[in-house]
């Protein structure tokens, strides 16, 4: 297997995640799309690490995973609050501000 195959796959997954962020109207799905994007970056990092035969990328991925976990915690807390406030998590309805 050439490493570039993994890079293409990472690109595809990243694009799916980006499209998901743009089209999804459920905030939770939107967060999951961001997670997918982050993980596609992880895949690219690991593929590059493999191609270069250095493990530094693995440390990068490990820390990206941790940061993603922290981000999700804050994001989901925010979803709970907004649901308490509005009884909705539809992104189109959460727009008092003009966006």
């Amino acid at each position, binding site marked *: 297997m050439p490493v570039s195959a993994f*890079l293409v796959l990472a690109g595809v997954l*990243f694009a799916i*995640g*980006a499209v998901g*962020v743009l089209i999804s109207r459920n*905030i939770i799905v*939107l*967060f999951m799309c*961001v997670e997918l*994007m*982050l993980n*596609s*970056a*992880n895949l*690219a*990092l690991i*593929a*590059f690490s493999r*191609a*270069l035969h*250095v493990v*530094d*990328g693995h*440390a*990068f991925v490990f*820390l*990206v995973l941790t*940061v993603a976990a*922290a*981000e999700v915690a*804050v*994001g989901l807390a*925010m*979803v709970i*609050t*907004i649901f308490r*406030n*509005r009884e909705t998590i539809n992104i189109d309805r*959460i*727009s*008092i*501000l*003009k*966006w």
Partner: protein
Amino acid sequence: MEVQLPEVSLRMMAPELFLFVWALVVITFDVVTKRAQGESVGYLTMVGIAITGGILAITGEGPGFGNMFYNDPMAIFFKIIFLGAAFMAVGSSFGLTKQKIVNHRGEFFGLMLLSTVGMMFLASANELLTIWIGLELTTIPLFVLAAFFKDNKLSVESGLKYFIVGAFSSAVMVYGLSFLYGLTGTTDLLQMKLNLATVHLTFRNIGVILIAAITMLIAGIGFKLGLPPFHQWVPDVYEGAPTPVAAFLSIGSKAAGLAAFAKIFVNGLSAFHGVEMAPNDWGKLAGIVAIAALILGNTVAIRQTNIKRMLGYSSIAQAGYIMIGMVAQSALGLSAVAFYIFAYMFANMGAFAVVTAFEDKTGSCEIKSYAGLAKTSPMLSICMTIFLLSLAGIPPLAGFLAKYFVFAAAIKQASLEGGQWLYWVVGAGLITAVFSLYYYANVIKQMYFSKDDSPYRVGLQAPAMLVVLIGLAGVLVFGLYPEPVLRFAGEVPSMFGFVSP
């Protein structure tokens, strides 16, 4: 197995470590005193920031953790800006903690300090991973702070929007960073620079992936800076978030993003200076973004009726001016950028402090409500006028010098070979500066030339007064006597090692 740590010097990290511990102290203090302390939590925070500033002054330069944490003049200069912004934001939020944030004062100030810690770590980072984590550490507390009024729909909504944009942009940025890592095989900026030059000489076709990485990174950092086309969140978040948080956001997080930009682009990707593959490939892209920011920020701000939204669009435009210095890609340009943020901090934090005091008193952020304020609160109106004029860049205030240095740096670089496109950026900056006068003057007009007297008399609490006075002093003193700051700002690029074209 032999364990080898890089050279560790906790002494170099002392300001960050102290501020981190202090943030925990503030949170614990609030909890231990059963949240009954009114203003003492805020004063405790301000004292902590002041002590950190003192520690920073005696820390000096040197490596803290190998090359990953390095106190260079740029780091120290930016840390001063971060601490100043945090100090002024905390000072202007006393009214807020008295009225609205009753139960979580400690967390409010603590998160502000933790965000500042993230910015300070970022300023010292010399490595992609640390830069990214520093940016995250800066923004995650800010998401929470923006949504801090839990029962206010606007605030929660602005926090959520900021979160979505922030998370998306950090994902885009990691993807860009992964490309850079793949190209160079290292995360260290210095090593990256060397490797890029080698890679470029060895392979002809590597440019495409580098351009993709550059685009991703400009998008990622552009989101944080609020540069078009990634600016939509800025006015919304400024309007919905608590006003001192919006102020902190406009300086702290912007300066943090700019520090990251300077480190990754001006330093890390500067290997192409003088190499055939167009030295300014990222410069041109960033230049287009800067022009878009200038035009959009300055024109849309005219239509705004809410002063916080207006300041939001104005901050987009100011980011555009700062980017002019950045795309000059010279030592002079970087010094100009540092001076610009420094001057911008005083004017913007001052203006926001006045807006906060006005909002605490009247509950309104409409520009209309400022009508006739000069008659009931003359001193406050004069202060506000000076801040707005400095933002617009009127001599002899600091904002004028800042704009002048940025333009001068770009023009100097434009006169060199291959830099002619910079004239376009400078031209856009000069023309839109005229527009910007209009909307700043609009607020002044409301305050001074309205027939009716304002129904409000707005006073300042002691800490807010201190903030306004610091802002005034900064704007006036550094407008007339900028030499000490300029000398310091001149040292900012000293670690960057520019290759003259």
